[in-house]
């Protein structure tokens, strides 16, 4: 076991940041992503937010069983995905629809779980994206196992797993961080600390000054960043992925952000937080700030902006019409894939249901 320089594992006391809420550059130039990347981050965040508002609208129209919006968390979800290579694996939660859309998964397939026609709408292998995880923190262990297996196979694949601040309280998160560190598995743990677990604020979730302080206890670097700054998210995730890829082991990243909407459409956020608090965070909007920066730097002009917005509208329109068509479901799916080969009992049960439906 190589000796570890402890100090290096502690996060910066203040969140690392490259572009502040005013859209001003603030940080070290060398870690700044390229202009192309910044433009792409902006574009995908605009697309992501439009997708998100469309999904919320569809919920109101009863087209989705439930939708956990991630409005406000665009920087985390988009920049993390942009920093990943195609061969890397993403382990998202129910909250991470924007990340998945940004990963290139068909928006309708992203919403399948939430529309309720099946538990997963896409091919995890096609997009190297695991099924959306609902049992909190459980996917952290899957990410560690997959990353370790990839390493054993001699691949340089990295797994990035997303989890929330609340999920860090679960035992599985602890076991995943510990095992990843012991095995030096190529995993990046990205905690989107949006301040709440449904109604429970961070102060009731942890006593630690920062969640990234947990890294040192596993012998892994803990990194604290401004989760509404797409530039620093991209830079830190890239850094962590590079380290993991080159055999440097896992990293714990805590990204400070905020969920602008309620936990889901079924939740009433006014019961546990103030409008003033929401307003504060609206002022730190991840898209606004990057846009300001790109405009002052003259990387983005009105034409470019309009183009992005039009693209977002067009995609939202396609999603709307796709989702307005009723989902096609097949009761036979219930029995298929419970086992690799349906058992006799399941074949009988499938036949029983088929008869019932014919009758």
């Amino acid at each position, binding site marked *: 076991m190589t000796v570890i320089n402890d100090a290096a594992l502690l996060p910066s006391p203040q969140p690392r940041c490259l572009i502040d809420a005013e859209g001003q550059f603030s940080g070290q130039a060398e870690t700044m992503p390229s202009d192309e990347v910044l433009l792409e981050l902006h574009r995908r965040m605009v697309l992501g937010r439009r997708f998100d508002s469309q999904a919320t609208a569809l919920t109101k129209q009863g087209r989705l069983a439930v939708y956990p919006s991630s409005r406000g968390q665009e920087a985390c979800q988009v920049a993390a995905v942009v920093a990943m290579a195609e061969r890397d694996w993403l382990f998202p939660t129910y909250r991470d629809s924007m990340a998945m859309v940004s990963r290139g998964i068909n928006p309708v397939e992203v919403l399948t779980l939430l529309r309720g026609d099946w538990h997963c709408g896409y091919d995890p292998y096609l997009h190297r994206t695991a099924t959306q995880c*609902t049992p909190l923190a459980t996917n952290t262990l899957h990410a560690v196992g997959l990353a370790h297996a990839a390493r054993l196979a001699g691949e340089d694949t990295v797994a990035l797993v997303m989890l929330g601040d609340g999920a860090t309280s679960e035992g599985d998160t602890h076991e995943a961080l510990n095992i990843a560190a012991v095995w030096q598995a190529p995993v990046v743990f990205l905690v989107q600390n949006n301040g709440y677990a449904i109604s429970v604020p961070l102060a009731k979730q942890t006593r630690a000054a920062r969640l990234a302080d947990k890294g040192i206890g596993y012998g892994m670097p803990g990194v604290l960043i401004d989760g509404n700054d797409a530039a620093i998210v991209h830079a830190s995730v890239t850094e962590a992925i590079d380290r993991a890829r080159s055999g440097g082991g896992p990293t714990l990243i805590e990204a400070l952000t905020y969920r602008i909407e309620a936990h889901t459409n079924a939740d009433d956020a006014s019961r546990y937080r103030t409008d003033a608090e929401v307003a504060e965070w609206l002022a730190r909007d991840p898209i606004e700030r990057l846009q300001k920066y790109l405009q002052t730097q003259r990387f983005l002009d009105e034409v470019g902006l309009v183009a992005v917005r039009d693209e977002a509208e067009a995609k939202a329109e396609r999603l709307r019409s796709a989702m307005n068509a009723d989902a096609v479901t097949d009761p036979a799916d*219930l029995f298929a894939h419970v086992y690799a080969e349906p058992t006799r009992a399941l074949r009988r049960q499938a036949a029983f249901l088929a008869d019932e439906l014919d009758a």
Partner: protein
Amino acid sequence: MTAIAEQTGTLSMAAALNRALADELRADQRVVVYGEDVGTLGGVFRVTEGLATEFGDRRVFDSPLAEAGIVGTAIGMAMHGLRPVVEMQFDAFAYPAFEQITSHLAKLHNRSRGMITLPVVIRVPFGGGIGGVEHHCDSSEAYWVHTPGLRVVAPGTASDAYWMLRQAIACDDPVIFLEPKRRYWAKEEISPSSSADFDSALIRRAGTDVTLIGYGAMIGTLLEAAEAAAAEGISAEVIDLRTLSPFDDETVAGSVRRTGRAVVVHEASGFAGFGAEVVARLTEQCFHQLQAPIGRVTGFDIPYPPPMLEAHHLPSVDRILDAIDRLQFDDVVALPAGLSASGS
């Protein structure tokens, strides 16, 4: 344990549970209520609404997001004389607490020769039928009933929800309290006193030809089925088990001995589900009075379906009627191998 005036009248099951918690918090200083989102928010189903405000955050509070932690700390609190009532937000989210529940909560009273008593109530919103996505609609009772030391109960009405929750909190044994989610909003009359003691099943409808046995959300379905059967000239007795463990053999076997026929119904998968124990023990006890093998109408042996398909999975009035029809009222023929009501 007496009801205060306002308890009479109609309440939704969620409101009845809320009232029961409030009354116990008021009646017994040792009662504490905690879990995920039960404090400020009042629970995702609003069952604990207003309790933190009324009783203060030392008695009703939000815990960190950790189910093993919730149950494990409840064990420690109970060791110190408190009577914790904790919530698992949905069935499947009780699974992280499985070790604490089976290895400690259920066994510690016995392991300590009775010196440690753990009056802990674990509230679990259970079952489906609400269009919930995966992991939100499990029926986990089979896991708990097989664990000696636990009491497992499931009210089927708002009135039972009120009285049984109070009985559960007053009980010195650990209790898994299964709340049928889809009944949360059904308004019903709350009776001024408990319909039965904590250990008893209840005959919800008297009948002579067949005994329909269920619990939780199935009670409504069974009563509908009995009504429909009556129209077909079959008199069905409906038994609400109320307590799954311990099991009320007297009431249930008594009914089956009279009717000679029975159908057991639950949402959970049939294979090794609780219905198997009900069939097995009733067959042991009533074999020579049985005119036909006891039928089972259960969920299929599959993971709980997505919202758009769950209706196919859940026991329906029609399936129950079909199961009754298969009880060989006309003439005696053997069932084809391995074809029970759910085809399991």
